[in-house]
């Protein structure tokens, strides 16, 4: 008999180690790919990346120096090795008499404005995290609630209305809903000053500035979640074990809230983990629309200015967030659904 889904701590640990190892391999591959895109693609296109970093008066010495500074002469794997070495033990940068020691975790220095990457990441990460978490709470509550209500009132005016709103939410891009909400609530009615204020400066100002981004971002996802919740809930309501629950004499709210919801939440949570992970990597459109100084904004600027170290740093954080979120989801999944084994 198959006994022992409640996997022992040893099994969980082994699983975790296995997953972390896979994650580390994946990170190396991701970093390699980013390096590759950055250095190889322009080379194939016949463009010298070094020329992107010198001014209007392209001094040949400057181009050569930039080439050296960017390590364009060195093979990619050497650069990747240096990069990882920097992360764990730090590294030293030296060019033209300018020597900089970069302590671990060293993500390097911006090619553009020479600021250290690590403080950039730690400065911007909380903004993105707050944006993602705040929106996540909203969309989870409202999306799931709307989906459940729609499922329970299938075919009703509410259901149709909610699903039309959800469809528009899914199909309208954030720079549209974002600008629209700005135009209405911020510029038009003047209810919200949708401008980012650091939390430390003014908690209320911070909150006020985050409302529109939260709501706009949550709207997109809530719409998605409402649709999925509705579909899943309808499917679950047709399950035999829901009939069994009723046959036991359970009150309907318990049947829905306990028996049906637990099953409905499984696919939702999987999605939630992925979405949250991806958002923590930077909600680029939302951050751009609302000028929030988060990771997404940093990486967008960095891509525009070919600032590799920032791209690498954000990519690494994003990948970590996605991998971590996946891991948490898998663990949660095993907790929710006893049929799933950690293997």
């Amino acid at each position: 008999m198959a006994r022992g889904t409640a996997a022992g701590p040893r099994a969980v640990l082994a699983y975790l180690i296995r997953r972390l190892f896979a994650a580390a391999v994946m990170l190396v591959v991701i970093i390699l790919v980013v390096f590759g895109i950055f250095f190889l693609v322009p080379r194939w296109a016949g463009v010298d990346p070094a020329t992107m970093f010198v001014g209007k008066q392209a001094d040949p010495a400057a181009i050569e120096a930039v080439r050296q500074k960017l390590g364009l002469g060195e093979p990619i794997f050497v650069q990747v090795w240096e990069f990882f070495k920097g992360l764990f033990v730090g590294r030293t940068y030296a060019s033209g008499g300018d020597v900089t020691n970069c302590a671990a975790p060293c993500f390097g220095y911006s090619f553009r404005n020479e600021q250290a990457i690590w403080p950039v990441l730690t400065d911007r990460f909380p903004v993105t995290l707050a944006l993602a978490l705040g929106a996540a709470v909203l969309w989870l509550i409202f999306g799931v609630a709307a989906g459940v209500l729609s499922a329970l009132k299938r075919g009703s005016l509410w259901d149709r209305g909610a699903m039309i709103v959800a469809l528009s939410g899914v199909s309208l891009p954030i720079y549209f809903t974002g600008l629209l909400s700005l135009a209405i609530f911020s510029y038009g009615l003047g209810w919200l000053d949708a401008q980012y204020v650091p939390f430390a400066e003014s908690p209320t100002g911070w909150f006020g500035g985050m409302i529109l981004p939260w709501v706009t971002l949550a709207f997109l996802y809530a719409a998605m979640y409402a649709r999925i919740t509705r579909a899943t809930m309808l499917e679950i309501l047709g399950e035999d074990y829901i009939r069994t629950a009723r046959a036991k004499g359970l009150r309907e709210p318990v049947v829905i809230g306990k028996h049906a919801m637990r099953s409905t939440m499984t696919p939702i949570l999987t999605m939630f983990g992925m979405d949250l992970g991806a958002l923590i990597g930077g909600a680029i459109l939302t951050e751009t629309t609302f000028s929030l100084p988060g990771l997404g904004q940093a990486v967008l600027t960095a891509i525009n200015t070919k600032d590799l170290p920032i791209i690498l740093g954000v990519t690494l954080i994003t990948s970590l967030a996605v991998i971590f979120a996946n891991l948490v989801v898998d663990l949660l999944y095993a907790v929710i659904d006893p049929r799933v084994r950690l293997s």
Partner: protein
Amino acid sequence: MITQRTTGRRKQAVAAAAVVAALLSTAACGGGDDKNEGGGSKNGAAGFDAANNKAAQASLAKKGGTLKFAGVQDADSWDTTRGYYGFAWNFMRYYSRTLVTGNAEPGAAGAKLTPDLATSTAKVTDDGKTYTYTLRDGVTWEDGKPITSQDIKYGIERQWAQDVLSGGPVYLKDILDPKGEYKGPYKDKSKDKLGLKAIETPDAKTIIFKLPQANSDFEDILALASSAPVRQDKDTKSKYGLKPFSSGPYKFESYTPNKSLVLVRNTEWKASSDPIRKAYPDKITLNLFTNANDMDQRLINGDYDLDINQTGMSPQGRTTALKKHKANLDNPVSGYVRYAVFPQSVKPFDNEHCRKAVIYGADHESLQTARGGPVAGGDIGTNMLPPSVPGAEGQKYDPYESATTNKNGNVAKAKEELKACGKPNGFKTTIAVRNNKPVEVATAESLQASLKKVGITVDIDQYDGAQTSGIIGSPANVKKKGYGIIIMGWGPDFPTVQGFGLPLWSGKYILESGNNNFALIDDKTIDGLFDSYVKELDEAKKVELSTEINHKVMEGGYYLPFVFEKFVNWRGSNLANVYTTDNYSGQYDFVNLALKK
């Protein structure tokens, strides 16, 4: 100087031009419904074009307050040696001083040099090869120590350290050390790191520049921010741009790149030592946005006073502003010329008649419309010298009658030129255009349409705009790709024919990479004119030479100018003493901006 926004800010449909024109005409009949309209009221905006080449509401300037800049593009660097954006140079005057600088006056007067750290403009001797300055008394750094001639020399020497401090202009490097003997202060073996021979500092108050060859624009170049002093013990090398050490009335309090910048008063700065700066506000802030529309809206709302980037409003904000807040707008000339250029390496553009066929065949009015029309785009460009540069004649010099007879193209003339070129049935070529500049793509399409009428078939190749210098800056690549027509724009680093045209038209500036002489002009006459220009010390003659260079370039048919660019610039209602200056190509002069309350 570089005033382009790499974020592709200037997104505007061709149709927007019509809207702008319509709005302007209605507003001109008193259509604006803003309460502040009417100009000059104490709390309101000064009126349309009130600060264009003249000072608006100078008398309302008050001391104190926080001057708030917004922007979508951070400076390339706030290090005086490394910055190349025009707005950055403009802003640097808050925290850096130079021996001489542009007058704090509107329009053309702003481009006239005036002493800053120096007691007077240069004492020029030795046939224009020796420039001597004496420093003022009481000029100090933000820690109270005096600014010395050695500090100025060190600041200039930093330009030689291109391997560490790339990005800024290197005119002085070419002028003072054409053979490249000096290796820069970081590799300088001498004890004081002041090994550059061309600059002498006999004492702390005197600095002497010894030029191997005369250059009549030398003082203009010394007025660039890149000639500002830097103190050796405060030089953080590549990180200097994160917190420059101030020699001006304000100093860095905090700076987070791409996010925000705060300047506060430098209490060691003495007004008596500074004939230029009035230092009205107590504090100056810069907040960076990623959404240009959002920023424009906040400017209109009055949350911010000024757009630091000074490239004009985005189409959406511009439309709103023209409708409701016209008194807050100025419509200055930007100093930029927008044009198409014909690389001679790509056949048949080696033949001047084929080039001229394109110039005659183009519909200039349609190109102007594609640029945004007469207001947001600018006047039809008839030659290559921006109106703010001495020697420019504007539309008075129109060799191809582009703004008059041929404004919608002249098919007959074009066909004539084609015959002379040996291609009576036309030819095929490719236009290279940046994919992140919708307006430039629109001009390419306009050109494509009008050239079709004369039998010239063109493909449009949109290349990655972020790679501009790598793609079209390499003549070999241009030839390989067959880019017969390149669409670009250019503005002066400093307002002279040398500051604008030397990299574009001089045979010496044809570079293997990072090339800007896209036409590959290697004309002895033009090079000779530039040589005479740099040796000429007489202002009137310089102007003449400047005009002549422009004529020679136009006669060669290397360029098809589109517009003398204009833009619609927002001026906050709370600003006083606002004016545009030719010193920074039509931008508002930041240094003496004040608040009304």
